[in-house]
């Protein structure tokens, strides 16, 4: 079992408040991603759950009992660190076995569990190597192996893929998702990469300046962002924001339209503009359009678009895909 509930969790370092007040309930078996820009407090929140930082106030309830004052070892959680944090002086085998040894499990049982984890993670041939003799991806797998053998209540991942190159990152992302499926364990995953958040999460927790901005499934956040911040953070390329006359027309302070929800025409439309730049991705083309008083807007066109930089163009936002926000940046529904 692995339910984790945060109740009025606060964290201050001296006079600096990192987490003003966080409330969150994580279900057993859920894959929850904490996402936000750097400095938003996502790693701190994870470390509070892990017990590597002490809460200033509030409760962290793991499986029904308050663990806020327990040391990390007593919380029954495993963590995978950004730097992998393998023990450099131990072989892969001992790295994976360390937690089990600390728990005082019998040697035969440890050997069996290590062998099984090594097989799952394709590490069987590397068990007697030292971490420095492994590639980045293999080290990452050892770190994951170390986490899974302990059969924790929940897994905590702190930006585990940010040290890997792009191709490997995609592979590891899939491996972690498969691991989640096969183990069915609760996982909390911290990243600043919204693509990782969208693709992996059951639910995403968007953090901004230590506050939980919104919690929801990837598509909920995409379709119904609660705030300008979430609207701007989720989705790539970023949502376009318009103020002034275009917004007042929709009784809002600001309106937002995603690049994929704008129709293009070379004859007529709601807003007029000039193509400044075209990014060709093959499957899509991202057009950066100077739209006069509306500013620079990004529009996604499927496939190759027939007009290039310098061409006049008209834009029309899709009905029902316009997000409205008040002057405080909250969504108007």
């Amino acid at each position, binding site marked *: 079992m692995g339910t984790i509930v945060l109740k009025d969790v606060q964290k201050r370092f001296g006079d600096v408040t990192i987490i003003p007040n966080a409330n969150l309930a994580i279900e057993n078996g859920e894959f929850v991603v904490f996402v936000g820009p750097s400095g938003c407090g996502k790693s701190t929140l994870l470390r509070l759950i*892990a*017990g*590597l930082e002490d809460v200033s106030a509030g409760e962290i309830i793991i499986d029904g009992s308050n663990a806020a004052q327990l*040391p*990390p*070892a007593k919380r029954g*959680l*495993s*963590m995978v*660190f*950004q*730097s992998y*944090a*393998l*023990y*450099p*002086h131990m072989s892969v085998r001992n790295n994976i076995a*360390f*937690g089990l040894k*600390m*728990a005082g499990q019998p040697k035969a049982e440890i050997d069996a569990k290590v062998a099984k984890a090594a097989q799952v993670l394709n590490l069987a041939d590397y068990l007697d190597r030292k971490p420095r003799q492994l590639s980045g991806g293999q080290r990452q797998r050892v770190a994951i192996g*170390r986490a899974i053998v*302990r059969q924790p209540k929940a897994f905590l991942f702190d930006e585990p893929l940010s040290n890997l190159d792009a191709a490997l990152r995609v592979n590891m992302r899939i491996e972690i998702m498969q691991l989640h499926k096969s183990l069915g364990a609760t996982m909390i995953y911290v990243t600043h990469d919204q693509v990782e958040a969208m693709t992996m999460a059951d639910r995403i927790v968007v953090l901004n300046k230590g506050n939980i901005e919104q919690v929801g499934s990837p598509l909920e956040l995409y379709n119904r962002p609660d705030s300008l911040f979430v609207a701007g953070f989720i989705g790539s390329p970023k949502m376009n924001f318009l103020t002034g006359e275009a917004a007042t027309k929709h009784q809002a302070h600001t309106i937002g339209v995603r690049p994929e929800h704008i129709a293009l025409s070379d004859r007529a439309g709601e807003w007029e503009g000039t193509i400044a730049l075209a990014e060709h991705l093959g499957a899509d083309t991202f057009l950066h359009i100077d739209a006069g008083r509306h500013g620079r807007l990004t529009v996604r066109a499927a496939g190759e678009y027939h007009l290039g930089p310098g061409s006049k163009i008209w834009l029309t936002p899709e009905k029902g895909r316009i997000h409205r926000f008040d002057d405080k940046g909250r969504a108007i529904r």
Partner: protein
Amino acid sequence: MARAVSVRRRTIATAAAWLIGFLIFFPILWTIITSFKTELEAFSTPPKFLFFEWTTENYGIVQERSNYLRFVSNSLILSIGSTLVALLFAIPAAWAMAFAPAKRTKDLLMWMLSTKMMPPVGALIPVYLIFRDMGLLDSRGGLIAVLFLMNLPIIVWMLYTYFKEIPGEILEAARMDGASLWKELVYVLAPMAVPGIASTLLLNVILAWNEAFWTLNLTTSAAAPLTAFIASYSSPEGLFWAKLSAASTMAIAPILVLGWFAQKQLVRGLTFGAVK
């Protein structure tokens, strides 16, 4: 041609290095050579370098006159003892400063080091009086205390720089893996810090071994280490260069041997973190 220049440069650099090395080593070499001369030859002009009657009589006389082994054992007890006591305090201190730094940790480190900038003679009279009143004069315990306190800043600094090199996340990983503070220290930190602790220990044994100011001023006989043994041969009544040299050679021999075997470890320790 570039290659020819680099070969010449390297030859010159090598020669220069040997020359400088020889200059530094020369006083020790001269002491060793002098220890095999007769007193008369020891201060002959011009000095005789190699061609003289080699004799070991000085060693015999020094052995007869003073109890070399007692001085050696005092030196061993003082240098190793003071270093071990210092490590006992320095490891937790450096640990705390490296892994749980506070706002003023850097200032604290600077302040500790600044105590080394005062000439020790400035503290001699108060320390002497305290030792006299507490009955610590000429006692090993008292000297261990002085030597330990004297070298503590350097030991803390060295260990601190070592511990700083160890990523905190590895210790956190151990904590997540269920290691208690004690197990974290024994199974994770210590194995990673052993080279650092070892070279700190070595360097401080050497520093304490060679320390002459306090050992000479606070001892007479019972706790006197090898520095006092050497000093006892530089008397105002006459020059005994050869015997003094023999005594010096005997005093530095053990630490020279130790240093020779440990030089790799020492160099690594002193340049730790510089190349990475």
